[in-house]
């Protein structure tokens, strides 16, 4: 009974006693450090607070550029635009049977022709017709989502139709955003690129420390160039039953 085995497998995922105590102590200690009483703002503090907020807002805008420009190895300039990053939920709704199988290295290389071998991945196919539906993998540290045209390519980010670059004749959307700071004050830069070519949607996403965002942008842009320098994949060859060896 595999379902029971899944439950049992999860049962084993627990911290050991020492770690458990360490986590609990850290959390309770953090709770103790918080101020014991809420501070009521005094009248004279309100204008000062408003001024500080305005100052902070200006500073925030100065430190949150809406565009990130990078120069790629081939000399091309690419601009990641924060204005086109729109968050939303994509809708997955198959009303037909699907099947999955692992793609061969050759198939992955056809879908993602680049010097770094993509991680292995399971692709989803339409069972009745054997058509490729979508797949998800990684190239180095870049997450890659592939989907047949017309299907949602990711769960969350909708990049829309606002391509802001053209590489080898293919319109490409480059976007980025910064997350809110975590408890250590570190913000994550998330950069993405997406394009549609010959019926295949490709969405690439990477992320890391805000301080490294230019390097991240350069690496991602170089990867897009490398992928687009090759011929477009022939999706009709990548089917459920016909395994390319």
């Amino acid at each position, binding site marked *: 009974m*595999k*379902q029971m*085995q*899944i*439950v*049992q*497998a*999860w049962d*084993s*995922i*627990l*911290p*050991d006693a020492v*770690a*458990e105590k*360490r*986590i*609990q102590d*850290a*959390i*309770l200690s*953090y*709770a*103790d450090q*918080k*101020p*014991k*009483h*809420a501070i009521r703002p005094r009248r004279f503090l309100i204008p000062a607070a408003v001024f500080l907020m305005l100052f902070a807002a200006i500073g925030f805008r100065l430190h949150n550029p809406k565009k990130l420009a990078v120069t790629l190895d081939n000399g091309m300039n690419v601009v990641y635009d924060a204005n086109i990053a729109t968050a939303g*939920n*994509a*809708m*997955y*709704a*198959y009303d037909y049977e*699907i*099947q*999955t*199988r*692992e793609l061969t290295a050759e198939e992955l290389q056809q879908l993602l022709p680049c010097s770094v071998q993509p991680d292995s991945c*399971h692709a*989803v196919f339409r069972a009745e017709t054997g058509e490729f539906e979508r797949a*998800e993998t990684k190239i*180095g*540290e870049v997450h890659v989502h592939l989907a047949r045209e017309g299907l949602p390519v990711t*769960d969350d980010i909708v990049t829309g139709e606002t391509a802001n670059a053209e590489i080898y004749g293919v319109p490409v959307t480059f976007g980025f955003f910064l*997350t809110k700071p*975590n*408890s250590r004050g*570190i913000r*994550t830069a*998330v950069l993405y690129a997406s394009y549609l070519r010959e019926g295949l949607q490709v969405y690439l996403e*990477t*992320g*890391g*420390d805000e301080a*490294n965002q230019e390097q*991240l942008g350069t690496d991602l842009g170089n990867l897009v160039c490398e992928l687009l320098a090759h011929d477009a994949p022939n999706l009709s060859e990548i089917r459920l039953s016909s395994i390319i060896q």
Partner: protein
Amino acid sequence: MAADQQGLDIAAIYERHSKTVYRVCFAFMKNHADTEDAVQETFFRLIRKQPTFETPEHEKAWLIRTASNICKNELKHWRRKQTALDDQADIPAPGATDYGEIMDAIMALPERYKTVIYLYYYEGYQTAEIAKMLKKPHSTIRNHLREARLILKERLGDLT
């Protein structure tokens, strides 16, 4: 130490949900050291934000969603650092452990499937509840579960 100043009983909440939060974080982080950090950050955020919970289920859902979001963000940092340190060598992170065939198969799933598998099979949530909790469309969660089952079936045999 029990309740903090705004009334949230952190110790009691920790007692109620620490295992769930730990497992959700582990699904993303795959090792105990990073899971520990993510669990702490989840509860730190609870202490800082002081959300109001209508029911214990609401409380649990908030923690699961927050833990998932924290892990997703942390992974983006962690991957970059790990790559720099290991120079892409296939070295398991500290604390990575072999949990057997089933957990290995679950851990090899794409990130977004793992939480759904955990919440569905272990916590016993319905797909509609998971969708609400993770703020995703119901159809998306149903399809994640369907795809995850197909992959697990291929690797482990029938799940029913």
